[in-house]
């Protein structure tokens, strides 16, 4: 349980930023 909690919390911390980077790239490409 503990590992799951830490893993989930780490993803919650890191992944929005990662996804955001890709999203911004997508939008920029689309705009170009």
């Amino acid at each position, binding site marked *: *349980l*503990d590992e799951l*909690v*830490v893993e*989930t*919390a*780490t993803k*919650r*911390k890191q992944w*929005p*930023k990662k996804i955001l980077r890709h999203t911004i790239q997508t939008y920029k490409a*689309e705009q170009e």
Partner: protein
Amino acid sequence: SVNPMAYEAQFFGFTPQTCMLRIYIAFQDYLFEMMQLVESVILKKLDGFPDCKISPSEIRKSTEKFLLFMKEHFDKLFSKMEEVLLQLVLNIPKNVLLPEDKVHEQYPYSKEQFQELQEEIQQLQQQYKAEAAAGQALRAELEEQKAVQTELEKILKWFEGLENICREHGTSNFKESFAFLTQNAKKLQDVLKDVEEKSR
């Protein structure tokens, strides 16, 4: 029900409970180790008094008695400490938002609104594509019109050229002059016929 303290884990990188467990186990190990050490030192000291009647098992009993007592207090004190630390130190107050989640404070969007926004973006993209296509079609027609206009103007020029020729030769109004010409031609034919008859 276990409170996983996931938000704290998001900040600290570990769950507070694990941290406390880690400290508890370490402290407990020290306590046991120290007691073992105490007992071995006492036994060694006793070697120096062969005639005294204190047996190792008696020492062991004393150790267990003291350790039991310490352990009870240790557990009580530790759970108090854990309670305080989990509440005041290793915790994130309810009203606090971590920096990486700031965006949720500025954009309290519901799921529906978010979907609407995505649909709106899709729709705008479709509209833009349609507009771009329409723009292309319009530009294509403008090109075509240019070519057609040029052709038609050429034809007009040709007519004008024709009329200029007529004007240059004194026939300003073509129709009249054509009628005049036809008359003349007819007159000439009559005269010709006349001449032919006379000559016969």
